């Protein structure tokens, strides 16, 4: 009896399935017709620029959302609002910090699957960041960095690549960008420093080939002597830098991430 019932049910399902196929085919034909005659569908692909923005977020993996946990939470988590809750970190001025004050300021970030929209990385200058990524990749492959085209280089020092907004020549702007990429490759910044508000300003004398001449001079200390040591270590490791537009003293500012 059970078996017969089963067969009856199968026959009924087959009839339903045939009806479903016919209706589905008609719907598909109708949809294709609509698409074919509608001009709006020709321009709905995502602009490439948007995809580029997501890609250039890649250089900062530590700031992105961690891999989703195996089991997502049932309820959304009330994440803190960083802009409201995080006090503006002051620039330390003390030359030597007591050891007790070197605990890193944790970043108000939710390390959850549910990431608040404001936590999504959105580089302000995607083209600049993207070219940095390309330069890094080329360098790792042993290729020459792309020579800057004068018309492509900003006439003002790019903010992300260093600079104060003063007008500089395209040649200088391009060198600053390459120098920044080169030096940061040598700069080790442990996690504890990244969560503090630190900035060290140094003057570096370079010869025409980018070689460091003499000792770099700290003109503004961060307040954390170990951070300052790391800056000096990195600039020494980075020598020779890319050949500067002209020999002489150049100014570098080393800022810890999330500080500014």
């Amino acid at each position, binding site marked *: 009896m059970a078996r017969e019932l089963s067969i009856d049910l199968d026959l009924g399902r087959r009839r339903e399935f045939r009806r479903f196929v016919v209706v589905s085919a008609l719907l598909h034909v109708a949809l294709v017709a609509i698409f074919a005659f509608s001009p709006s569908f020709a321009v709905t692909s995502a602009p490439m620029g948007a995809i580029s923005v997501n890609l250039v977020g890649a250089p900062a993996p530590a700031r992105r959302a961690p891999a989703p946990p195996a089991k997502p939470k049932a309820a959304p988590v009330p994440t803190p609002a960083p802009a409201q809750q995080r006090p503006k970190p002051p620039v330390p001025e003390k030359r030597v910090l007591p050891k007790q004050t070197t605990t*890193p300021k944790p970043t108000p970030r939710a390390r959850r699957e549910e990431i608040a929209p404001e936590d999504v990385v959105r580089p302000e200058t995607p083209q600049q960041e993207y070219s940095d990524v390309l330069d890094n990749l080329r360098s790792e492959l042993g290729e020459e960095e792309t020579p800057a085209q004068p018309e492509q280089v900003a006439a003002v020092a790019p903010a992300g690549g260093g600079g104060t907004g003063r007008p500089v020549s395209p040649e200088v702007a391009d060198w600053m960008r390459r120098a920044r990429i080169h030096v940061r490759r040598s700069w080790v910044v442990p996690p504890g420093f990244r969560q503090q508000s630190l900035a060290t300003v140094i003057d570096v004398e370079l010869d025409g080939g980018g070689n460091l001449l003499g000792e770099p001079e700290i003109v503004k200390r961060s307040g954390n002597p170990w951070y300052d040591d790391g800056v000096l270590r990195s600039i020494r490791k980075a020598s020779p830098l890319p050949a500067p537009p002209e020999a002489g003293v150049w100014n*570098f500012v080393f800022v810890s991430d999330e500080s500014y």
Partner: protein
Amino acid sequence: MRTHPNRTLIPLLLALAAPAAAQERPAVVVDPGRKQAYDVAVQRFAEPSGSPRPSGAEKFREDLGKALEYSNIFQLVNPRAFLGPEATDSLEKPIVCSDWTQIGADALVQGELSRDPQLLTAEFRVWDPARCASLLHKSYRQPASADPAQLARRIADDVVEAFLGVRGVSATEIAFVSKRRGNAEIFVMAADGSHQRAATANGSINNFPSWSADGEAIVYTSYRQANRPLLFLSTRGRGRPGRLLPRLPTERAEYRGVFSPGGDRIALVLSDDGAAEIYTSRPDGSELRRLTRHRAIDVSPTWSPDGSQVAFVSDRSGAPQVYVMSASGGEPKRLTFQGNYNTTPAWSPDGQWIAYESRVGGQFDLWLIDPDGSTNVPIVAHPRNDEGPSWAPNGRMLAFSSKRFGRSEICVVDVGGDNVRRLTQNAGENTAPAWGPFPR
């Protein structure tokens, strides 16, 4: 969240700082790249020829390397890549810095190790090859019976301090509660999870370990006597183990004891068959001072690092929340308002943060709040419960118990929420970690 250099502060910095020579040119602003760990080359420590006992220099290098990597700020350079000598020749000879910069070493550790019938001696030097500068030159002399692995950890913590300005914690210990033998006993392990051993074996229920300021004793709660919770001391052998407060009557329940940072007082949770209240006293039980007077339950005291304040948990608002009050008494101030279940506060060694567990979305996660309550941020969130935070003495890591592996296990995490590492993997629950002080 990644942020970009602030365009208002940096020009100001430059205007103030840049000398005349450089003022004509804009500054190159360098923000951190991906490198978060220094490459460290560790030479095999030299052993004196004709040493009566082998000092195990190769094993010592292995232990030192592990302890350096535990810090998360060093990664080892393979000795086979060395251009310079693989073993230390002499600590007095200058090194050829280019040998080490060419292989990318940010640090070089070299040393000498010797062991005679009386002493285990290690002398070492830390170099910064890029600047060709010696950062540290130090020696340790310990009894011959000392554990060389522990000596290697202490050296690693010194190397960390030379680069970070903050001492490493690989030589510290963590006490915790484990049910691996059936009942809840107090255990102790090295901060990397090695060398786990029992501190109690009384067959009763033991809980809430807390270290004395000098790391020589652990106070814990046990039902081993009179079938009531009483406080006991476990010592390293110098002090006398036994009841912490022998003068107090056993009729009074002693739920918890926490030594003050200075070691001169102890915060207590006591109850006379009523609600639990917070007290303080001298470690011998004298000068007993009651801090809270409320019919609600007040538990889980934690001291501010200067010993002037105590944070604790109270359900006086109707749900467990964290409160702060003066250690000399006064009106408590409620600190947490998020959610309806916030417990186990732990004050950071630098006083800037109070870590606690908060029930969010049905499970417990670790959060940080500053003592004035203005900033409240999650450390790490996971679909399984993370509970019972305890600070490393350098304030850069926390130990906690987590159910993310099924049963509760002790884990450590960087204060920024990175590098969760599991320390225990035994049968039975492992809970209530208490990170000990720096070794003396």
